[in-house]
């Protein structure tokens, strides 16, 4: 590690499988990554690429059945979360790892007040009494920029607008000063102007609180503005991983490159036609024995059919799971 910091979260070789009546779906295949204190790791991918499942797997939030974490290690502090018992996990969830989910409409319990839902983790994990919890809850709402926080504690989720609700979700996630915040598409359900508000808020909070954040999204634009490092996922595995500027400036994996190409620009040149990635994302009914992107890849060759490419270092802190070298236009030697 260049900056010598120990990762707060270290995931190694995670494998998660869904068992359905039609057979198994290998949603996450040998995913490894780490998260350093205070950094924001962006995770990009289309639906079904396994990005959410990866994060849920870490901490036992996937419903089982049908989900089953098959293999791997998740080192968080002294614990391997995959081996930890439910009590340990429960003590970590909400206290040391906070979650923000995509849809703030449905992620809050409609029949409890926001205050109650906010105080729940405070009382459980921090052992605060009611009064202290309320005070802290108000503080948290103020922190996430909800005006008139004291009064709004008594309101129900439906009395908040979408953006405000997402702020509440963030407040809940931050309630116990977690070391890690996992945000699963937190702005996807929001309008652009509201999304901008939330992004601004997160940047602000990062500065104030300094926790590490995993930010899952399918929107490259969001990632570009907020992340330190980015992982691109496709077909249940990490296909490219780099610091944000490196990734956008020098994408190595054909998928990343294609993905960047499909987004029409807001400024400058307007292309006559959008670039497309033909075909559909794969369904992983078996552990992949070949590159999952090969069918849609314009550069695939014989080796891609035979072998699932490992993550190959392509630069400082930059790796890509691809046999093709964009610099040469030919196979990469690995």
């Amino acid at each position, binding site marked *: 590690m260049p900056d010598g910091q120990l990762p707060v979260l270290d995931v190694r070789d995670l494998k998660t499988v869904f068992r359905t009546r039609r057979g198994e779906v290998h949603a996450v295949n040998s995913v490894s990554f780490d998260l350093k204190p205070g950094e924001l790791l962006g995770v990009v991918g289309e*639906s079904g690429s396994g990005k959410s499942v990866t994060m849920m797997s870490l901490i036992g939030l996937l419903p089982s059945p049908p989900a089953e974490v098959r293999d791997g290690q998740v080192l968080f502090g002294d614990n391997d979360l995959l081996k930890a018992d439910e009590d340990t996990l429960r003590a970590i969830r909400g206290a040391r790892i906070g979650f923000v989910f995509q849809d703030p409409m449905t992620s809050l319990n409609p029949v409890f007040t926001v205050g109650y839902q906010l105080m729940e983790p405070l009382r459980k994990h921090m052992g605060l009494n009611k009064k202290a919890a309320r005070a802290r809850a108000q503080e948290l709402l103020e922190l996430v920029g909800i005006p008139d926080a004291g009064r709004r504690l008594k309101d129900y989720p439906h009395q908040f607008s979408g953006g405000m609700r997402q702020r509440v979700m963030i407040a809940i996630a931050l309630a116990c000063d977690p070391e890690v915040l996992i945000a699963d598409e937190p702005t996807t*359900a929001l309008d652009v102007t509201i999304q901008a508000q939330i992004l601004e808020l997160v940047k602000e909070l990062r500065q104030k609180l300094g926790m590490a954040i995993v930010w899952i999204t*399918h929107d490259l634009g969001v990632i570009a503005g907020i992340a330190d490092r980015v992982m691109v996922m496709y077909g249940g595995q990490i296909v490219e991983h780099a610091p944000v500027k490196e990734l956008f400036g020098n994408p190595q994996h054909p998928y990343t490159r294609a993905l960047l190409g499909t987004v029409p620009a807001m400024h400058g040149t307007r292309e006559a036609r959008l670039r497309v990635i*033909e*075909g*559909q994302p794969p369904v992983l009914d078996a552990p992949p024995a070949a590159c999952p992107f090969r069918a849609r890849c314009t550069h695939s060759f014989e080796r891609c059919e035979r072998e699932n490419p490992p993550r190959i270092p392509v630069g400082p802190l930059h790796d890509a799971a691809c046999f093709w070298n964009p610099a040469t236009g030919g196979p990469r030697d690995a």
Partner: protein
Amino acid sequence: MTDTDDRRDDVPAEPAANPAGAGAAPALDPASTYRAPRNQWLDVWDQFKSHRGALIGAAVFILILLAVTIGPYIWTIDPTYIDIRAKNQGPTLAHPLGTDQLGRDTLSRMLAGGRVSIAVGLTAMALSILIGTVIGVIAGYFKRLDGPLMRFTDLFLALPLLPLLLVAVLLFRDMLSKTFGPEGGVFILIVSLIGITSWMQTARIVRGDVLALKEREFVLAGRSIGTPSRRMITRHILPNVLSPIMVSATLGIATAIITESALSFLGFGFPPDFPTWGRLLFDSVDRMQLYPERVIWPGLAISLTVLSVNYIGDGLRDALDPRIRGR
């Protein structure tokens, strides 16, 4: 009015969504192979099969249906024939289920009774479903009629049904008996009464579903094409409310059989010498200690039928619910 972005990445849904896409994945790649077209009913059947209770239920119900329809042609003893010398017999070769206090053959009475009970159940259910569906669809589809029709439904819901059922039996029994004979008249009466008094739930469910369907974009799409209302209903609405209707149908059969037996108990059902399961059970209850088998047979038959249709309903509910089907 809704501009919501539906792009959700719901985790548990992921595995469910994927296989659906898989069948047709290589759309732009005609060379690759794809699965044969699947009828959606096959999917339903697949899911239904996986519900063991429903499968057993279906098997039992079909067995019962076969028994009561074909049974009397195989076991030809007249259910009303009195063989007084053979009264109160236990199971023998001549009378596998024994005989009653007049020496009538219990097996043939069970078969004849089941025929009536199941016929009552099926026809009453069909009637109730028909009324409920028509009212539900019309109320849900035509906004102007919604208010009046739902008030009408509420009115029926607020009517105390059993008392009215009993009064109606008193009222119309004779008229109908005269026209259709004592058994036919009572059959028509009971069936129509049960049907008329049990459609409201179906109507409400169907209306709710139709209202939701109306908001679905494919209905809007139909409108934008200019499909007239009646074809809208037959083409887009009805096929899509089929599942709640089928579930209420199974429950309807069970309720109708139970109601018929309750009417028998209260003395408002079929003529006493006309066997139905409810009547057979009721007649034997007094002699329960002496001849327990005589309550067991009809009791078992009713319970098995109701259980089996209930399980079928349960299975259908699961099988027809796309949210569950994926699991």
